[in-house]
């Protein structure tokens, strides 16, 4: 579903050049729940942005759902974001002027999806039926993140990208969010979560660990996949 071949992303030029990603190659298949792990500055968010067609590599090739986004035009990149990937942000980034339901509906309208689950049904799937008409500032942090997840799910896009989705949340809430994300991987959909939290990585099918822009390890979590309920931080 996602193929990265010798992907490099460099900033600056000459002696001041910094390589956020340095010759990364990896493949992520559908159904996988992948955690990209690494300390600050390791390049994990850059990797997420490139997969999400928000950024383009300096060199190398990226294919998402069969489409080479390295050579895609600006318009094609917008189309990839509408129809292939969906984002969940650390700070939720909900639209404050829209209700929970409208935030979800916004994503449906943005991707132009016809048919499929309605906004209310998606909200129900994340347990937010009652809060559907609340505005973001009227919701707790956990509820806001669930709305953000519902918004991403509502697009029906096959790649779900989450950047530090539990970073703003307390432990209990974070666990519930992680559980929710874990459930989303399955046939036709891959979930990629970027985090610096090793505990979260324990719940993944696969952990890609980055260090200074390079993949330092790629495989199942050490000690095997853990149950979300067993996590702590």
């Amino acid at each position, binding site marked *: 579903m996602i193929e990265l071949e010798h992907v490099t992303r460099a900033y600056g030029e000459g002696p001041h050049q910094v390589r956020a990603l340095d010759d990364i190659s990896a493949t992520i298949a559908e159904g996988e729940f992948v955690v990209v792990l690494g300390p600050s500055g390791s390049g994990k*968010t850059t990797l997420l942005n490139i997969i999400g067609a*928000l950024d383009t590599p300096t060199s190398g090739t990226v294919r998402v759902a069969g489409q080479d986004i390295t050579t895609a035009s600006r318009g094609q990149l917008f189309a990839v*974001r509408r*129809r292939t990937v969906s984002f969940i942000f650390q700070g939720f*980034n909900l639209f404050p*002027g829209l209700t929970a339901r409208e935030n979800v509906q916004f994503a449906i309208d*943005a991707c132009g999806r016809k048919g499929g689950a309605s906004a209310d049904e998606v909200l129900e799937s994340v347990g937010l039926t009652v809060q559907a*008409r609340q505005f973001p500032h*009227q919701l707790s942090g956990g509820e806001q993140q669930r709305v953000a997840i519902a918004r991403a799910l509502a697009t029906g896009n096959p790649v779900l990208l989450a950047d530090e989705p539990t970073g703003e949340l307390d432990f209990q809430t974070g666990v519930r969010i992680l559980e929710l994300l874990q459930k989303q991987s399955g046939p036709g959909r891959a979930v990629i979560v970027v985090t610096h939290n090793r505990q979260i990585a324990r719940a993944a099918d696969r952990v890609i660990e980055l260090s200074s822009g390079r993949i330092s390890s790629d495989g199942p979590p050490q000690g095997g996949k853990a149950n979300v309920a067993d996590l702590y931080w």
Partner: protein
Amino acid sequence: MGRRRVGRPTLPTSTGRWSAAGLWLRWSWRDLKARWIQVAAIALVIALGTGSYAGLSSVTKWRRASTDDGYARLNMHDLRVELAQGSTVPEGALLEVARELGGGGVVDQAEERLVVPIQVDASTEERAILVPGSIYGVNVSDSGPGVDGLFVDLGRELTDDDVGKPVALLERHFGKYYDLPPTGTLEISGGQRIDYAGQTLTPEYFLVTTDRGGLIAEANFAALFTSLATAQQLTGREGLVNDLVLTVVPGSDRDALKAELTGLLAVRFPAVGATVTTREEDPAFKIIDADIDGDQQIYDIFAVLIFAGAVVAAFNLIARIVESQRREIGVAMVLGVPPARIAIRPLLVAAEIALLGVVFGVGVGVLLGQAMVSVLKDFSPLPAWHTDFQWGVFFTVGAIGFLFPFLATTWPVWRAVRVPPVQAIQSGYRAARGGGLAPLFRWVRVPGNTFAQVPVRNVVRAPRRSFLTSLGIAAAIAALVAFVGLIDSFLATIDRGEREILSANPDRLEVDLDRPYALDSEVVRVIRESPLVDQVEPQLRLGSVALKDGEDFGLQVQVLALDSTVWAPRLTAGAVDREQQGIYLSELAARNLGVRVGDSLTLRHPRLEATGTFSLVETELTVLGLHQHPFRFVAYMDSNQAGLFNLAGTTNLLEVVPVEGPTRDDMKRALFPLPGVVSAQGVSEVSEVIDDLLSEFVVLLRVIEGALLVLALLIAFNSASINMDERAREHATMFAFGVRVRTVLRMAVVENLILGIMATIAGVVAGWLLLRAIIAIRIPSTLPDLEVIPVISPTTLAISVFLGVLAVALAPLLTVRKLRRMDVPATLKVVE
């Protein structure tokens, strides 16, 4: 172990203080640079406010100084005596009366004149220029006249050598309007030719008015100034005078002297009507004086509106800057920096923006002042224009331009430094602001998907910003509506008068005679029998004064057959009654006198005496009806009542309807040479000339309209730009979901469209109310003879709607580059 001395922290040294000041300055300068487009927009708004106010206020000072200098330099009269129409007295008689004034010693200078209505033919090869005018016989010895002097703008002065010769000076406004050469030859009544040796300015004609209500009447009135002897010869009034102008010693009570002089004249010439007026009652002086003050009042109003826009824009930006610095303010609080010191940085930004605006404003003010004065110099020539840089005006206006926007920014700064530190340093969703009034509007859904809901919610989500933005734009639109509405209203008034005058036989001419003639006299017979003439309606027109309960003002009473088929006034109240003695007033005159149909008033009017002179008598008359003409002084009586003036069976005004074929100029040329004819004018000429002269101002109006358009656009752009900044993360999120730039822009355009509609409605309503207030307050003092009804033309309305709705709605398009160049990943991470 040695003891370490611990003391109180020392105060910063002066070097330290300067260093700290430098840091704040550098930091605030960086804030400015980070938002330089918005800063420039607000600085321009402030510049437009300060510049236009300072520039226009400078023009007021220049006009005042230049006209005062003109009056002083040409020794304008303090009192003037005019004998009733057609009356004269022997030369020296009026001076004798003047010498008795105040028991002697009060009069500084006095000069007799002879002022006679004439017809002037200044036709050139290209066009026929045949207008009524007056010939002034004055003292030309010793660079005279000594009172109401002549400033020769082109050509040469008159001297003793010109006494008794057909040489005159032509009034400059007339010469300028028709672009006549500096010297030349004219033909006046009776086919007499007279050379003009130059073109001159004089206080009575700093603004050309006529006793028939002509205002800015240079196209329709020519004054000629010649020696007294020449005027007497040309008009057949040897040894006679009918006018006296005098100046009194400083400190004299002009009104008291006027009353005394009136009494002396009544005793000395009981059979001759004489009117005494003070300088303040001179029509040109009165209008110019009131106009300068009135214009300044309007500038004050517009300045308030423009400054309101500037204040709103500055407030919005500083509020935004403070919001974006919220965490930095919080960190400073955590570090123990006192709130007053934290406030320095945003306040410095505000001060720098305001200062920048004021500096730009000086440039705008100088440019605008020069542009205005160049139009005024052309429109209203004076002996000298004093256009020194007005330091006081610029300093005062600059201080206002600095202080108001600056003070407006203290509120958001004060609020920002008062929040608890823990709240200030919060990040992420905890720091997210509420939805404003959005929850109240959750049930309000506009047709369409969520993209259609976003603009409405954004408007209500930041109600203060939306309100202030609308207020700023509304202020600019209100200024535009009021300003252009004034012109609309004035033109509509002229049109109203024109419609009334042209309601029948619009091609007819008014032929003025130099005195009343019998209906079977030669001049009337010749005109009636002219092959060019279809119909002739003999009438009378007589200057009179209406009096009622202490209120009095001049009337031009037109005595005509009210059932005439040539033309008759249309009444709005009352009914024509040809048999009853009474008068028909304009609605404004009735209102000013406090009378209605059926009430009575006193008319002070001329009456022909057996001696052949006119005396002024007072008669009680009933108001029989009100007519539609907007000029207060226009009044009508039926020709059956001409006996009141002892003028039954006579005429001094002929309404002439030409046969089909001849042009207006043909008619003028045919009527001009006839003895006794003073003028022949098409009835529509006055309004045509005013239209013509106003067109000279159109360019200036367009400049001011343009400035107001720029102002509204700047406020709208500023607001759109701030909104784009504030919503950058939302836009980045939309981009992350693949929403196109044009869709985001469309939402911003719709949001501004909503603001624009709100602002336009408010602006048009406020402008309309302002226009009504200006007309209600200003017109009665500046143009008391004109009934101006507030009107906003469809064009003005269309421009306002374009300005307020379309231009404001499209302002976000100016931010398209910023959107397209947005670093989406970085923006998604922005923590505010």
